[in-house]
């Protein structure tokens, strides 16, 4: 069954200016879906709708078969329990005045999950490969990659059905990106993941399926392998062609710039 389903979702911030235009895609339980697009494609707006911070102008979002309704507080409470976000910038997404312990246990407290609070936090910390003594320190004691691990621990502590990841490696150094992608691979094997990114390489490494967005419209969707190996839409092709690659040097000619 599809855990999440968007059906012809439209959204406008100002009248007449459609930011999302009949966006439809679904996320099956246990799968990892990459949502790819450049600035202005509508990725962040989709996340906003999925976090229940705004509602579609038209169309519907269904979670576990039930339509999402921001007005229905009981329904939304259950939904928020089931869905957790991880954001792009770990420097602004962690409260600098709180210790790691209270940052990670925040979802448990606000969602009213009282049992085994301490052991859940401990497990989440271990799952993201942070040492146990991290728990009594402040975010300022950690590097960017470690902070992102704290943010990920906070997202998984309540054992959500769906994790929404918004450009979670974009603000990190390259070698750190590789390690966080590895961590997400592990997490993806245990839950359902909607992974929003502008970076096709990261999505290729992580996602079973891919949805390509261009200016609010889904231009191509399918299994990551088939879409990237055999892109049908010109936009997908230009995205792929634009990715900077390490040049292949050969013996005879050394001028790598000719292929720019």
């Amino acid at each position, binding site marked *: 069954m599809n855990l999440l389903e968007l059906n012809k979702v439209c959204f406008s911030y100002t009248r007449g200016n459609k930011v999302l235009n009949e966006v439809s895609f679904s996320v099956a339980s246990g799968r990892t879906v990459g949502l790819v697009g450049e600035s202005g494609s509508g990725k962040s707006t989709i996340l906003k709708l999925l976090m229940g911070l705004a509602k579609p102008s038209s169309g519907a979002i269904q979670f576990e078969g039930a339509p999402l309704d921001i007005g229905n507080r009981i329904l939304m409470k259950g939904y928020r329990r089931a869905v957790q976000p991880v954001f792009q910038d770990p420097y602004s997404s962690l409260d600098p005045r709180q210790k790691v312990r209270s940052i990670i246990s925040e979802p448990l407290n606000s969602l009213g999950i009282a049992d085994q609070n301490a052991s859940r936090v401990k497990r989440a910390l271990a799952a993201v490969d942070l040492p146990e003594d991290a728990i009594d320190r402040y975010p300022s004691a950690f590097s960017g990659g470690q902070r992102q691990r704290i943010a990920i621990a906070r997202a998984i502590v309540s054992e959500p059905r769906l994790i929404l990841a918004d450009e979670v490696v974009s603000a990190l150094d390259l070698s750190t990106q590789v390690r966080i992608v590895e961590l997400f691979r592990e997490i993806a094997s245990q839950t359902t993941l909607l992974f929003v990114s502008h970076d096709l390489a990261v999505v290729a490494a992580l996602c079973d399926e891919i949805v390509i967005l261009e200016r609010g419209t889904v231009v191509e969707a399918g299994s990551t392998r088939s879409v990237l190996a055999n892109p049908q839409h010109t936009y997908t092709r230009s995205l792929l062609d634009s990715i900077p690659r*390490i040049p292949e040097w050969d013996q005879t000619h050394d001028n790598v710039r000719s292929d720019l």
Partner: protein
Amino acid sequence: MSDLLTVVDLSIRTAEKELVKNVSFSLPEGARMGLIGESGSGKSLTALAATGLLPPAITASGSVIIGAQEIIGTPDQALNRMRGSDVAVVFQEPLTALDPLMKIGDQIGWPVRRRFRREGQTTNREAVRNEVLSLMEQVRLPEPKLMLNRYPHEISGGQRQRVAIAMAVACRPKLLIADEPTTALDVTTQAEVLKLLDGLVRDYGMSLLFISHDLPVVASIVDDVTVLRLGEVVEQGTTRQVFEAPSNPYSQGLMEAARTFDSYLQDI
């Protein structure tokens, strides 16, 4: 070929901490060098020191020579004369690099007028406007005549970076310093802007100091690279040497990470 930029034992420090330690490299006329490093490696500080733009609380020692001019310790007023004619910079974030209250045409007009004065040409409106329009065409800004009257917030990120590049090129500098010029841009725009920079550097015979954390981007545009880590040079060599056979463990790790990302796409 003589060296256009020579950096010898450059150290940069705040009151408490040494941020860049004994960095040395040189850039011959017409050459292209990449400064590679992760965050905190000191690559941007090195670029700022090279143009004398370090904030007052940060002091530099050692020597940076552009042309025949020593930069370190030289007062701003004296440096102003060489800014533009000897060196121009393109920064990462084009929205903060441009004056939000000034129309695009006027922003590009500024360095144009400066160069005209330097070269003893007339600086009447007509001449400046024609040069601005020609620069806008060179950086492929769409509809240059309409663009003249736009403000930075009315155009896209890629277009803003083209404006910043037009302003830098307008000075006809011998050395162009590009500090993460495509990092804030979308990937398709990045490809276009890189191609543009590559062509302009070639056409005007400029030297290029290209600063970036993005290894494939650097590899596509420079001939030599210097790898920085925590303010120190860990490796220098031709792009090919450093990318194919890095000798330092840190650069080896960097290259490995970059190739891992490359392989994600190759495996498809």
